[in-house]
């Protein structure tokens, strides 16, 4: 090999080695790795799956008859919620995830049991929920939210954010809400509309606790902004997380005619 080709090879290798650093440096808006907080490890949501415990009335969890929350709903959405609660109390309001085919969506992705990982990178923040499994992406590379024409309703919407010190602040739009009756905030039957917009501020309040404060605005469903806070406690180190195949052994099919959730026996036949 000639001296020239060696030099070319070394230069190429050097460019590969430095490539990742170069790509992260492309957008000045990005916070470099060494300035980002440490949210490593696995986490568990604290306090059960009632979405807004601060306004909860009734004792128990989200599937307990009589339990409800009190968002500042418009009359139209309060009526919808009351209908959902009635069905829940009659065991005829199945969790939309029972069909094992739709994502939990946002903000419900911050209201799930099982374990979480919060992956912090300069260009993007990932919420990885074991339950589901569900994923949310918050772009932190300096891009802007897409315009209304370029946004369509999805379960998790579109999110962009930035760091204010150790606090990640992000905005979410493009949520489908209750358009197709398959996106809820919890099993009491809380829903939002496709006009909802959520601003979230997430930070560590101590070494073991992450807090996400969401301010939810929704011109159709809410009369004023609704603030909901969720907290996550750090798990002990070394836990293994697993996949969660909802369709693996789902023995709770829903009767579309009645909304009743049935139970299949170990032989796959309906138990009567």
């Amino acid at each position, binding site marked *: 090999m000639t001296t020239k080709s060696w030099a070319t090879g070394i230069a190429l290798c050097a460019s590969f080695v430095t490539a990742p650093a170069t790509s992260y440096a492309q957008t000045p808006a990005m916070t470099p790795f060494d300035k980002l907080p440490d949210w490593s490890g696995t986490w*568990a*949501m*604290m*306090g*059960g*799956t009632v979405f807004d415990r601060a306004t909860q009335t009734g*004792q*128990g*969890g*989200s*599937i*307990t*008859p009589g339990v409800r929350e009190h968002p500042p709903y418009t009359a139209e959405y309060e009526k919808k919620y009351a209908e959902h609660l009635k069905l*829940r*109390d*009659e*065991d*005829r*309001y*199945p*969790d939309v*995830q*029972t069909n*094992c085919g739709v994502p939990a969506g946002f903000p419900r992705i911050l209201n799930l*049991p*099982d*374990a979480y990982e919060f992956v912090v990178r300069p260009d993007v923040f990932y919420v990885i929920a*074991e*339950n589901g499994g569900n994923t949310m992406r918050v772009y932190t590379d300096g891009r802007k939210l897409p315009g209304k024409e370029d946004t369509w309703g999805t379960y998790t919407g579109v999110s962009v954010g930035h760091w204010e010190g150790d606090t990640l602040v992000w905005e979410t739009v493009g949520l489908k809400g209750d358009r197709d009756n398959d996106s809820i905030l919890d*099993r009491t039957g809380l829903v939002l509309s496709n006009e909802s917009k959520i601003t979230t501020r997430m930070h560590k309040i101590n070494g073991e606790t992450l807090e996400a404060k969401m301010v939810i605005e929704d011109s159709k469903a809410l009369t004023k902004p609704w603030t909901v806070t969720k907290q996550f*406690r750090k*798990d002990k180190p070394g*836990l*293994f*997380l*697993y*996949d*969660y*195949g*909802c369709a*693996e*052994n*789902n*023995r*709770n099919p829903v009767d579309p005619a009645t909304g009743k*959730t049935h*139970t299949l*026996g*170990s032989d796959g036949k309906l*138990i*009567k």
Partner: protein
Amino acid sequence: MNSVFKVSFAALAVAMGTMAVQPALAHHSSAGFSEDSRVVSGTVKEFQFRNPHSWIQVNVTDASGKVTEWSVEWGSPNQLGREGIRPSTFPTGAQVKIRLRPELTGAPIGIFVGAKMSDGKTVGKWSEE
């Protein structure tokens, strides 16, 4: 013989409230299940340690010799696994007493509360009364 025991679900709710995560139960309301728990005694037919929920299948024989298979629903194996539960926790053929909240229809379906194995080992929220 099966026994029926009442438990304080207010106390249970308080206990559950102290847990970081609400156990993932059925994909449906708890309205269809009794608030009173009962105990069934039988033989483990199968422990389905699979998502989205685990199921313990127990064959229960009544006084006339009739065998009924109970389906007892529990949490996801992911969550239970981190709490020390394993596929071997309920071995096929094991004799077991299981406390459960039965479905109100009378069908042999219940939500798991606790269990006592024949060697005296207990699992979950077991109590004799």
